[in-house]
Each structure stands twice: as C-alpha cells, then as structure tokens.
C-alpha cells in the first residue's frame, strides 16, 4: 500500500517552472530514494510534498487523504515529518530543547518524555550531548539531531533531504545505518540524495530525477552503474568508448566496492545496456593542445 501518492505535480518560482508534472508513489514501510544531480528539482519535490512550496497543479495524497490544500503545519499534524537540507537544527538551542520543539504537536508532557527517551535510545550519542547547543555538534551529530527531532511526534512518513551533504564518508555510512534501523522499526522514508552509492545501499526503491522530471523508477537492485550515470546526466564522464559496445574487450560489470550494496551482476536492464570497459589507471599526459570535436549528446 502506498502511504503517499503524488500525481502530476507542477510548481515553480514566479513564472519559472521547476517541476514539470512529477508523479510518484511511496510504499508503506519502505525506503524510497530520489537520486539526481544538483538542480534536478529533488528538494523542491520534497518541499512541495510537505507544503513549504505551493503547488501549481497536481495533487498530493497522504494516508488516503488529499492534502494538496493543507498548510505545512496541518500536514505535520497528520504524521508527516521533513528533515531539511543542510542540518536545520536550531543552533542556539540545546539538544534537549531541539527535541522538545520536535514534540510540539504532542499534547502531553509525558508523551514528550517518552518520545524523547525513544530518540535517545536510537541515537545514544544525542543522550550524551543533551545539554549541548545544537550548533556546537559535529556535522554527523547535527544530522542525527535533525532526524531525531523529526521522529519525536512518531510520524508515519519522514522526508529526508540530502542527509549526507558535507559529511565525511564514514559519517555518512553511520548515519545511513541508523536511517535503515529507523526504517525497520516501521517508519516509511522518502529520501533525496546525491550520494548514489550509499543511497543504493539502503533504498528499496529508486527514482532518478533530471531537470524537474522523474526519468526512472525501479527497484534499487535493477540499476546498472552505467545506466545510472546516464540517467543522472553524467554518462558522458564514463568516456566515449563506453557507448560503443563492439570495442568492449572484457565485459566486466562495475561493482561498487561497498559490501552492502545490492547491485546485481549482469542483471538485464530495462533499456539498452551500454557496456563499460574499465580503463587502465589514468596516466598523466600533457593536455592535448588541439581542439576536440564536440561530444555527441544522446
């Protein structure tokens, strides 16, 4: 069952459209990820879902109810949480105060207390720092606090925007483990990421966005690395020869070195599969002086 359904969503700023008809489903209990490069419209999608950006047309259905016309505060009250990009913790409030604010919609003090205990259980690190100001935490801790705060009202769905941004890979790995753990405890997630490999490690379902449109939807295991690069719009970086299958010498599929990553070898893909040749380690050459012909775009 889908906890969130978005149909033909359009929105933008001024006269400039950013989303050109986005449709997506978020199945309950799963982690759904939207991948895309900078400027693809991922954050705008999340903000439109949580009501921070008004819709031009289309609708958003949450738990079977059309919430398109509702304000953000009402959506939050219905069990939607949104972790903003850039670790939007309140820097001058303590960890505990941040969490108390997260529970603002809870009616009684005891509920706040038990929710806080739950968050501390998930993030023991936060319990250690409960009196520290949000702004003095490390990047990874701030992101945990942002997630923990969003968990306070026990939401049904959490939207997570670029949790990995600016974090060292080791911190990203840890954070994503916790996200997976939160998910297994029954919270549905819609995450937006640029960090492809970590995301594929935890997501059940993947969508790729480019220029305000969703260009691919599928199970996360179905995606081939090259196909993904192409969908993201950086396929050209794989080198020109990769598009020419006849030149392929060894058909070695690229597996990301991460252990948990469920990329399946040689899985047939939906579209025409480009074959990649793993090039030898780059040798530093002098920059070629002559002009290069323009690369043909697909």
């Amino acid at each position, binding site marked *: 069952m889908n906890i969130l359904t978005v149909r033909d969503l359009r929105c933008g700023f001024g006269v400039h459209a950013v989303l050109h008809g986005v449709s997506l489903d978020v199945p309950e209990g799963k982690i759904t990820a939207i991948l895309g490069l900078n400027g693809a419209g991922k954050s705008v999608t999340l903000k439109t879902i949580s009501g*921070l950006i008004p819709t031009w047309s289309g609708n958003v259905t949450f738990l079977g109810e059309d919430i398109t016309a509702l304000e*953000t*505060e009402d959506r939050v009250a219905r069990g939607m949480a949104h972790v*903003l990009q850039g670790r939007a913790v*309140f820097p001058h*409030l303590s960890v505990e105060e941040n969490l108390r*604010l997260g529970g603002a*919609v809870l009616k009684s003090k005891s509920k706040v207390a038990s929710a806080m205990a739950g968050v501390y259980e998930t993030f023991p690190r936060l319990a250690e720092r409960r009196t520290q100001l949000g702004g003095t935490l490390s990047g990874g801790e701030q992101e945990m606090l942002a997630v923990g705060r969003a968990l306070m009202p026990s939401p049904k769905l959490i939207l997570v925007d670029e949790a990995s941004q600016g974090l060292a890979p080791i911190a990203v790995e840890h954070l994503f483990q916790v996200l997976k753990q939160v998910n297994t405890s029954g919270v549905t997630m819609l995450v937006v990421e640029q960090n492809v490999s970590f995301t594929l490690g935890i997501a059940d379902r993947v969508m790729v966005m480019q220029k305000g449109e969703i260009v691919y939807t599928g199970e996360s295991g179905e995606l081939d690395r090259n196909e993904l690069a192409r969908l993201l719009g950086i396929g050209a970086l794989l080198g020109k020869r990769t598009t020419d299958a006849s030149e392929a010498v060894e058909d070695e599929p690229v597996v990301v070195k991460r252990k948990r990553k469920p990329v399946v070898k040689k899985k047939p893909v939906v579209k025409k599969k480009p074959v990649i040749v793993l090039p030898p380690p780059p040798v530093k050459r002098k920059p070629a002086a002559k002009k290069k012909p323009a690369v043909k775009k697909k």
Partner: protein
Amino acid sequence: MFTIIHGLSIGALYGLLAIGIVLVFKATRVINFAQAEVGTFAAYATRWFLVDLSLPWWAAALGGLTTVGIIGFSFERVVIRRMLDGPKLAIAVSTLGLLTLLGFIEVKFGPRLLRPPLPSKGLQLMGTTVTPTQILALVCAFVVGGALLLFVRKTTFGLGLLASAQDPVAVRLMGIRLKHLSSFTWVASSVIGGLAGILILTSLGGDLKPFGVTALFVPALAGALVGGMTSIPGAFLGSLLIGLLEVFLQQFQVSGLEDAGVFVVLIAILVFRPQGLFGKAA
C-alpha cells in the same frame, strides 16, 4: 554609589525597551523603530484613562497597555504580515511610518502632565534619594524581564519563538504556526514597550511630550546590540551597561557627552562586533 544605582535604574528601563526590540527582531528579523514611540503613546493613553476617564492608576495603566497591545496586534496583522516575503528594510521603514503616525497623533494633544503612580516623596537609600516610582520601575523591569525569560525557555511556544529566529521554516515543520508567533511577539513587545514608556516618563519626571521617549530608542538599541540582538538576557545586561556608561559620562558635566558615548558604542558594535559583546562569531 548614587551613580551606580542611578545608572542601573536607567539601564533597567532601557532594558525593557531593548527586550521589546529583541523580541520583534527574533521573530521578524526587523528592527522595530517604533518600539520607543509606542511607549510615549502608551503614556498618553494612560493619561487619558487617568484624567479624562478618572480611572485609578492601575486601571489607567492597564488601559494604556491594552491600547498599545491592540496597536501592535493590528499593525502586525494589517501591515507586517503582508510584507514578510519582501525585503526586511521595507518592513523596517514601515515601522518608521508607525513611529511618525503615533508621534503626530500625540502632537495633536500637545505636551501634557502625567502624575507619577506613587507619591514622589523621596526615600533615603544608602545616602541617596530614590523616588518610589523609580523603585517600582526597577522592580517592574526585572520582573517582566525574568518572567519573559522563563516563558521562552520553559514553554514550547516560547522555544518556538527562539527557534523561529534561527530557522523559521524548520519551526513550521515542527507544526508551530509562525503567524501565531508573530502576533504574539508584536503584542508582547508593544505592551513591554508601553510599560517601559510609562515607567520612564513617570520616574524620570517631566511632561509628556510628543515623541517623548523616541530618542531613548538609540540607547535601548545600543543595549540590544551589545547583547547581540537575539538574546533577551543579553539585551537586558547590555542595557544596564549602557545606563551605567551614560551616568558615568554625565559625571564629566559636559552636556551631550553621554549621547556621544552611546553613539560611539553603537557604531563600534555595528562595525566591529555585529554579533554583540557576549555573542560568538557566526
């Protein structure tokens, strides 16, 4: 000794004005230039309730504070809320409009006399003369400041107020309505400003004059800036410092030197430490 007590009592009154400035700044990121003028207006309104309606002092003061509370509420509703998406400077200039509007209404009434709430017979305290009204002012300043501080730290709504200065969008995502916060701040800051105005005008003596305490906006703002603009205790403490500075400079018996001192502090803070004396660099 007298200097210190005098300085602190002046500073405490600036502190009330400064708290009002900080409240609005936190919620709207705008300096409310009308903050002190609201105080003059509250005193005028109080006088009207007191003299024209012959109400007792406490009721008249309540009437005056309610009047400016309503003004603050309506101004937020009718003007500020429409402008929130626009540039902050435009909002600030619109508060100048409120300042002159109230001031020129006062001009129509002209200078008036407002008798102090308590008998003006002085008390001897550690070798200096202090009027009961001054003591009342000091007590009010500390009580209001303290109560406000407790309110913002201990209630979720108050925390939301603090947080909205740091990240308003995130506050919405906590399910707290910014509109409510904004209404509250404008009413609260108007009432606090009104209280400060009434206390200043009655404790320092002198007639009610149009734009009477408007010039005090400058030292109060200096106090708020010393405190870093977003901290309520910081603003209060900063204002106490400013009050002390003024009184010490007055000792030099050169008229106007205290203004120069405040001005220099203000500019120096703006230029060199915009985060305030107690704040940390961003």
